[in-house]
């Protein structure tokens, strides 16, 4: 059996998911017991979430049994997290920067300056988005970045998620420094990037 997360919900679940346990906090688990890959678990979690279930998700790549999930709940402060993340959702922004321009036969100094420019542009974009998002979101994590791509995760009140998406889309459209970047706003998701967070207010 494979656990998907912890919840206080009591609502009807998608067909392939069921509750385990009978305490205040119960485990969501997949009915299918074997051969469940990470992607299928993610899909099942999203189905639960979109069916209105609030829960703290287990990373889909992890194999955690319902029994182990109960044990984790008993041995950690997960309960606070489950309570704290009730009615919360995550929005995830993907920001693609244009490619770094290739500096032709540069001096070392020119090369370093070019790298600095690219880095400061990234910082500026993240700063602008975080400033803009501050009033709309409960929490903000810039991160997971590779060379030209950044990801920002925001924790928002679930019932306001679509309102926030609209506001972000409208607000970001005219921010300076964003002319050359491509944005994708995704969600609402289960709060994958806030499962260790203590700041829910």
């Amino acid at each position: 059996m494979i656990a998907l997360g912890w919840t206080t919900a009591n609502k009807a679940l998608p067909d392939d998911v069921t509750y385990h346990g009978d305490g205040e906090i119960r485990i969501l688990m997949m009915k299918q017991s074997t051969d469940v890959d990470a992607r299928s678990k993610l899909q099942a979690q999203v189905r639960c979430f979109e069916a209105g279930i609030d829960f703290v998700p287990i990373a889909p790549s992890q194999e955690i049994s319902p029994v182990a999930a109960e044990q984790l709940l008993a041995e950690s402060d997960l309960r606070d997290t489950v309570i704290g993340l009730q009615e919360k959702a995550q929005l995830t922004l993907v920001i693609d920067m244009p490619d770094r321009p290739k500096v032709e036969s540069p001096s070392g100094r020119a090369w370093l300056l070019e790298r600095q420019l690219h880095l400061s542009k990234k910082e500026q974009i993240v700063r602008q988005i975080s400033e803009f998002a501050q009033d709309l979101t409960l929490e903000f994590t810039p991160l997971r970045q590779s060379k030209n791509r950044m990801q920002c995760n925001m924790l928002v009140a679930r019932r306001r998620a679509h309102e926030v998406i609209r506001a972000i889309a409208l607000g970001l459209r005219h921010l300076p420094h964003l002319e050359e970047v491509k944005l994708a706003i995704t969600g609402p998701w289960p709060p994958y990037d806030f499962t260790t967070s203590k700041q829910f207010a």
Partner: protein
Amino acid sequence: MIQPIEINTKDISEALTDLSGSNGRLEIDPDTVEQDLARLVLGLVAFLRQLMELQAIRQMENGNLTDQQEEKLGTTLMRAETAIYEVAAQFNLAPEDLSLDLGPLGKTI
């Protein structure tokens, strides 16, 4: 003065985790042992080089470096990057195969 970057075993472990994917295993296969080892070693070298680059940029921003130092640092880091990618190419590894998060500093951007 800028604090030096401290790297502990946990950071290294995280860097390796990023290189290994989600199953928690860095597989070294008999058929692709050269490439697997190259990915492991070059990935770590690339990780350290990126940290040095970030730190060099911070030092430069804080005005701690002379023009000559900037020239020398830039040249060295640039050549190191080229060299890493050249060696990687010999093992049929693309730059993305070595791509890591920028590490502890990079994660805060």
